[in-house]
């Protein structure tokens, strides 16, 4: 026993680095910006960082649960497009704002139900099924809006996206973000459903033999992910004040996967690491911000994020073997 602790001591530092890769990278980027970016060290920069992360955070939280169940949801970006388009068009056509929001979220749930059914009932490989879903949903949103961007003004939206509270100018948008983080953490760690999700991600066969409804669990995580993606789409809609089925939510699934994997949740499932995912989502926004501040083309941010995914996946596979 003693021998083991001695030998593993060298590995502990490495393990700490791997376990907290996302947070460490965040620290590095914040330090970099603090040194090289003018006016970065301000309370407002912090709020900006968090406010910009909100929609991605919603999607990332959903993705964390999906991935910990051993699946993947590539359709979140497209669902964001659908929910923002539906809500926006409904408001533009003079509908009630609250009804518009509920309608958008309802349609998002339907998408989630389809995703879950394809994976759980028809046993398609999640990545392939979601690749199909991503294309179909995005196309549906584009058909619905005829691919035309439209300005949307909404009082609820303005309140959520632009309003600042208190003397330290807390953006209202931070509140739902904190709520959804807490909710996801609570579901993943405190409820029986969260345990079922991890169990299914560990081993579907074992989960079945333990009396867990595997299909039900998978459908439920897809529903969770899609409704959060729906929220994410609404936030993007309110922040930009316009619907655009072509660009809203584009590449969000990739950013979310990057955030989740670098946060330490393995693509093979089995364990949800909420803290890691939070750090991962912040890291994604930090990468975008840093690239913007440094006056490099924004595409560089996507390249960096892509590298982050590959790096994270390689780390996971090395750790396993």
């Amino acid at each position, binding site marked *: 026993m003693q*021998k083991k602790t001695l030998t593993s001591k060298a590995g502990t530092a490495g393990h700490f680095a791997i376990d907290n890769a996302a947070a460490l990278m965040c620290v590095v980027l914040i330090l970099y910006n603090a040194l090289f970016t003018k006016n970065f060290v301000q309370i407002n920069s912090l709020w900006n960082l968090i406010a910009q992360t909100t929609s991605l955070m919603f999607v990332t939280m959903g993705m964390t649960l999906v991935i910990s169940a051993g699946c993947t949801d590539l359709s979140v970006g497209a669902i964001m497009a659908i929910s923002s388009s539906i809500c926006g068009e409904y408001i533009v056509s003079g509908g009630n704002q609250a009804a518009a929001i509920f309608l958008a979220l309802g349609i998002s749930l339907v998408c989630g139900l389809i995703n879950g059914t394809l994976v759980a009932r028809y046993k398609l490989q999640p990545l392939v099924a979601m690749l199909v879903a991503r294309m179909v949903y995005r196309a549906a949103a584009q058909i619905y809006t005829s691919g035309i961007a439209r300005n949307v003004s909404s009082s609820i939206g303005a309140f959520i996206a632009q309003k600042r509270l208190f003397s330290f100018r807390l953006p209202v948008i931070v509140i739902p973000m904190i709520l959804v983080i807490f909710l996801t953490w609570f579901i993943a760690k*405190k*409820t*029986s*459903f969260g*345990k*079922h999700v*991890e*169990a299914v*991600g*560990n*081993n579907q*066969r*074992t*989960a*079945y*033999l*333990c*009396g*867990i*409804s595997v299909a039900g669990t998978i459908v439920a995580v897809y529903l969770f992910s899609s409704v959060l993606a729906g929220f994410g789409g609404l936030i993007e809609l309110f922040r930009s004040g316009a619907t655009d089925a072509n660009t809203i939510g584009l590449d969000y699934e990739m950013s979310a996967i990057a955030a989740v994997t670098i946060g330490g949740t393995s693509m093979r499932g*089995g*364990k949800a690491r909420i803290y890691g995912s939070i750090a991962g989502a912040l890291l994604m926004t930090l990468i975008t911000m840093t690239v913007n501040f440094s006056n490099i083309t924004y595409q560089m941010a996507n390249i960096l994020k892509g590298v982050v995914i590959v790096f994270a996946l390689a780390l996971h596979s090395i750790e396993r073997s």
Partner: protein
Amino acid sequence: MENQKTEKQEYLLEARNIYKSFSTVPALTNVDFNLRRGEVMALMGENGAGKSTLIKIITGLYTKDSGQVLLDGKEIRARSVLESQQLGIQSVFQELNLSPFLSVAENLFIGHEIRNKRGLIDWKKTNEEAKQILAEMSVYIDVKKPLKDLTAAVQQMVAIARAVVVNAKVLILDEATSSLDADEVEVLFREIRRLKTKGIGIIYITHRMNEVFAISDRITVLRNGHLIGVYESAAINMSQLISSMIGDAKGREVVVRKKENPELKNAPVLYSLRNINKKNRLYNVDLEIKSGEIVGLAGLLGSGRTELARIIFGDDQDFTGERYFKGERVNLKSPAASIKNGIAYCTEERRSEGIFALMGVDDNIIMPSMDSYVRFGVINRKKKNAVVKEYIGRLAVKTPSSSMEIRKLSGGNQQKALVARWLCMDTKLIIFDEPTRGIDVGAKAEIEKLIQELAEQGLAVLYISSEFEELVRGCDRVIVLYEGHVVSELSGMDISNESITNAIAEGGRTVRDAKKLQEEKGV
């Protein structure tokens, strides 16, 4: 010239002084092994004796810590299966390692393709040669068929044929017969004898004792990583071999019959099966289990033990027959339904069906009974921790903390945690499928003791084990299966190692006779 050469190197394959350890636990301690040309050497030993470690070292899957492996007198250092194959060491395993979608002919020749002048594969010639090679083995099939469409036996023959095609010097057959029936085994033996005449050395590993004496020339016995002895097959009998494999009573409990429990006679039947049939697996099986009773299921691999357990647990719906629980007919559609009724199944495949590797010991324990700690979907941690703590203590699961990832525990402790999983709920019937497999001796004894205690507390236990001694020690009743037929039911003082073995042998004969009779009738 050639004669001289063979004399000079007495052994085709030789392993000298092999030492191998896994994280300081020795798996092989200074083991010597040798194989002559044209000889069948059986490699025997219980689970964990070191057979597969030795084979994996010879085939290059593992690297040895020290020692030498010599082929034709020259030292070899294979670092991968590929390298050992290039040297002429081929293996055929129980689980097939051929490509399922490729044709039979292709499976024989891939890696050694027959090419035409242009350097492309000559399919016509390939198919012809494949047909010829298989015909030599008296296997007449369409070689263009994909491999997956053939029976297990034919696939096994193809695997052996492939080894011959690639010019094997040494052929390792690792449990190659476990999916074959008696006639098929006979065909295989004929082929082995033919290969012997070609000068190929064969290492034969099996759990079927009869086969060892039928085919092998010499027997090497390993136990706990040590070489126990090398015997001429003709000069040793079965009981000598078994005692050599198992060892003397030292460190082992002497087989003591369990005391008979008179109360059982009047106890009501808890679970019963009537007339269970499953295609090609089970035939007219009846079974009764009473509360407080330990019923053993004995039989060789493939006798239908696990299949029966899965039907009882509701994991398999593909059968006909009736199931009764507490006197009422039940239709258990899924494990979930069984668990609700208090039926538990402790699986044989601990890794692939038992543990949630990445989850803590506590979560692994409470997974099926989670509902009882849950209110509005939220887990009551206090209640959960109390139960987990209690059962970790009761079953003496050695773990640094209750939230430790279960994959980091030893096999025995994993098994105890899995038993705890089913005990911490209101279980009335528990099925143990090979509960002591792959765990160390101390833990084995603990598990056996635990099972006794469970029965004393009034649980019904169905106990499946291929170590008959365990059944003799523990069971009130033993049901003997042979190829899906119940061939005998032993109880009380009638249960003994010999009686079980005899029942299987006898059953084998009756079942075979019955089959023949049926065939004759059919003709």
